C-alpha cells in the first residue's frame, strides 16, 4: 500500500517537473505563439493585440499556475494553432501512436526472447559469430533508413500499403494495421537486437554463477537448469529492459511516424513545437511522462511477482 502511494506520488511529481520544464523551455526559446500564428502578416500592433488576447502578457509563473490549475481540473485548454480543444486533437493521435508502440512492443517481445534462448544454444559455434554480427548490424541500421527502404520496397514496389496515406484507424482497421505493422518493424528492429543481446549476456552471466555449476555438477540436466532456474533469474533483468524499451519506443516513434506519414502523437508534437502551440505540447509531454513512469512501474510490479526479494523495497 505504502509502495503504491509512493509510486503515485512519484508519477505526479515527474509529471509536474516535466510540465514545468516544458513551460520554461517555451519561455526561453525564440518565437512565441502570436508570431507563429501571424507569420509574415505580423506587424507590431497585431502582435500586441494577439498577445493580449491569448494572455501571453501575463507573468510566466502566473501563466504556468493557470495552466496547471486548468490541467488538474481536467481542462486541457484550446490549441492556439487549430483553435480546437486540445483533447479532441490529441485523442485520435494518441490512439494511433499507442497502436504503433504496442504492435512494435509485441513484435520485440515475441521475437527477442525466444531468439535469445535459442541463440544461447549456439554458443561456441560458427553460427554464434554470424548471429552476433547480424545482431550488431540490426542495431547499426538507423530506423529512418530502414523506414525509407521499407516504404519504398513494400509501399511503392509491392504496394502493400500507401506511404503517406494512413487509413482511418477505426473505419479501416485492417489496412491501418498493415501500415502500422511496417512502421513497427522499423521501430522494433534495433530494439529487438538489443534485447536479444542483453538477454543473452544475462543468461551467460547467470550460467557462470556458482549455483548453476553446483546444480549441473549434482547431475542435473543442463537444459533443465537453463529453463528452470536460469531463465527465471534472468527474467527480472529482461522485464526491466523491456520496461525501458516501452518507454523509449514512444520517443523513437517520432522519426518513424515522419518517414511513414503516420499522423500520430510524435508528429503532432513536432508540429506543435514548431508552431509554439504550447497547450498541445504541454499535454503531449505530460502524457509522455506518464507513459515513461508507467512503463517503469509496470516493470517493477511484474518483477516483484517474479522475484519476491524485491518486494522488501530493497531496490526502488
Amino acid at each position, binding site marked *: 500500500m505504502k509502495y503504491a502511494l509512493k509510486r503515485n506520488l*512519484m508519477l505526479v*511529481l*515527474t509529471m509536474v*517537473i*516535466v510540465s514545468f*520544464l*516544458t513551460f520554461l*523551455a517555451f519561455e*526561453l*526559446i*525564440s518565437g512565441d505563439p502570436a508570431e507563429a500564428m501571424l507569420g509574415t502578416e505580423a506587424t507590431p500592433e497585431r502582435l500586441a493585440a494577439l498577445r493580449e488576447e491569448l494572455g501571453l502578457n501575463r507573468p510566466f509563473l502566473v501563466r504556468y499556475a493557470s495552466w496547471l490549475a486548468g490541467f488538474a481540473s481536467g481542462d486541457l485548454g484550446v490549441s492556439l494553432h487549430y483553435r480546437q480543444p486540445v483533447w479532441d486533437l490529441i485523442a485520435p493521435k494518441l490512439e494511433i501512436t499507442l497502436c504503433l508502440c504496442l504492435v512494435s512492443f509485441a513484435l520485440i517481445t515475441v521475437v527477442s526472447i525466444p531468439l535469445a534462448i535459442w541463440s544461447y544454444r549456439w554458443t561456441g559455434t560458427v553460427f554464434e*559469430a554470424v548471429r*552476433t*554480427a547480424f545482431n*550488431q*548490424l540490426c*542495431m*547499426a*541500421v*538507423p*530506423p*529512418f*533508413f530502414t523506414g*525509407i*527502404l521499407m516504404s*519504398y520496397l513494400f509501399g*511503392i514496389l509491392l504496394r502493400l500499403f500507401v506511404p503517406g496515406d494512413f487509413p482511418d484507424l477505426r473505419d479501416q482497421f485492417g489496412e491501418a494495421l498493415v501500415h502500422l505493422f511496417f512502421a513497427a518493424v522499423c521501430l522494433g528492429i534495433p530494439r529487438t537486437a*538489443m534485447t536479444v*543481446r542483453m538477454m543473452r*549476456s544475462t543468461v*551467460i*552471466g547467470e550460467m*557462470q554463477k556458482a549455483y548453476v555449476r553446483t546444480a549441473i555438477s549434482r547431475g542435473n540436466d543442463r537444459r533443465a537448469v537453463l529453463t528452470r532456474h536460469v531463465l527465471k533469474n534472468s527474467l527480472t533483468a529482461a522485464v526491466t529492459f523491456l520496461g525501458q524499451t516501452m*518507454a*523509449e519506443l514512444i*520517443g523513437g516513434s*517520432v*522519426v518513424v511516424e*515522419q518517414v511513414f506519414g503516420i499522423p500520430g502523437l510524435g508528429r503532432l*508534437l*513536432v508540429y506543435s*513545437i514548431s508552431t509554439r502551440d504550447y497547450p498541445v*505540447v504541454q499535454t*503531449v*509531454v505530460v502524457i*509522455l*511522462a506518464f*507513459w*515513461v*513512469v508507467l512503463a*517503469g512501474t509496470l516493470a517493477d510490479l511484474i518483477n516483484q511477482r517474479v522475484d519476491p526479494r524485491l518486494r522488501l523495497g530493497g*531496490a526502488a
Partner: protein
Amino acid sequence: MKKRRINGYLLCGLIITGVLLLAALVGTFYTPFDPNAMNGAEKFQAPSFVHLFGTDNFGRDIFSRVVKGSGTTLAIALATVAIGAVVGTLVGAVTGYFGGVADDALMRLNDALTAFPSILLALLVISIVGPGNKYNVVLALGIVFIPSFARVTRTAFAGLRDVNYITSARLMGAKNGRILLVHMLPNTVRVLLPAITIGFNNAVLAEASMSFLGIGVTPPDASLGYLLSEAQDKLSRAPWYALCTGAVIALLVFGVGLIGEGLQKMDREVA
C-alpha cells in the same frame, strides 16, 4: 588470470572503425574533390571510378562529402558521449552511493528528462547558445544522453555500496570522495565500457535523426545524418546517395558495436 587474447569481434571492430577513423582524419585536409564545389554539368551522376559514390543534385562528389561528413559525425558523437558519460557517471555515483533524497530527486529529474522531447531541448540549447553553432547539437545530445549513463552507473555504484571491501574502507576512515574515485570507479568500468560503445552508436543515430528532423548541423558542411536527410527525397532519382550514406552510418555503428561485443567477451574470459 588468463592471457588476454584479442578476439575476432574486437579485431574486426577495430579494423572497421580504424579504417573509417583514418578516412575521416584524412578527409579533414584532403578529399578527392572539394566537398562543396558544385558542377552543373554533372548533376546526379551514378557511381563511377571518378565519383565513387556518384554525385548529388548540385553535381557535388558524394564520396568527398561523406568522408568529410563522417569527420563531423564522429566529432559530434565523441563529444556527446563524453558529456553524457562524465556527467552521467557523476550523477550515477552520487545517487547510487549516497541514496536518499538526492537519489529520489535526481531520478525523478531523470524520468522527466526521458519524457522531455529532445527536439524541444535542441531548440532550447540553440536559443541559448545561438543558432548556426556546431556545438548546439553536441550540447543538446549530451544532455539527452545523461540519463541513460546515470541509470547504468547508479545501479553499479548502488551494488558496490555495501560490498565488504568498501565497508572496510569506510571503517578505515577513507573519505567518500576517495572511496568513489579510487575504490568504486575502476569497478564500474565493466558496465561503463559497453555503455559507452552503445552510447556512441546511439549518438551517431540520434545526430542523424536530429538532422533528419531539420535541426542539426549547418549546410553545406554536412554530417552523415544531414546527408541522409538530403538524400531521402531524392531516393528514386539518386538511390546511390541514400544507400551509400546510410551504409557508411551503418558500418560505423557496426564497427563500434563489434568493439563493444569484443570487450564484453574479453571481460567474460578474464573473469
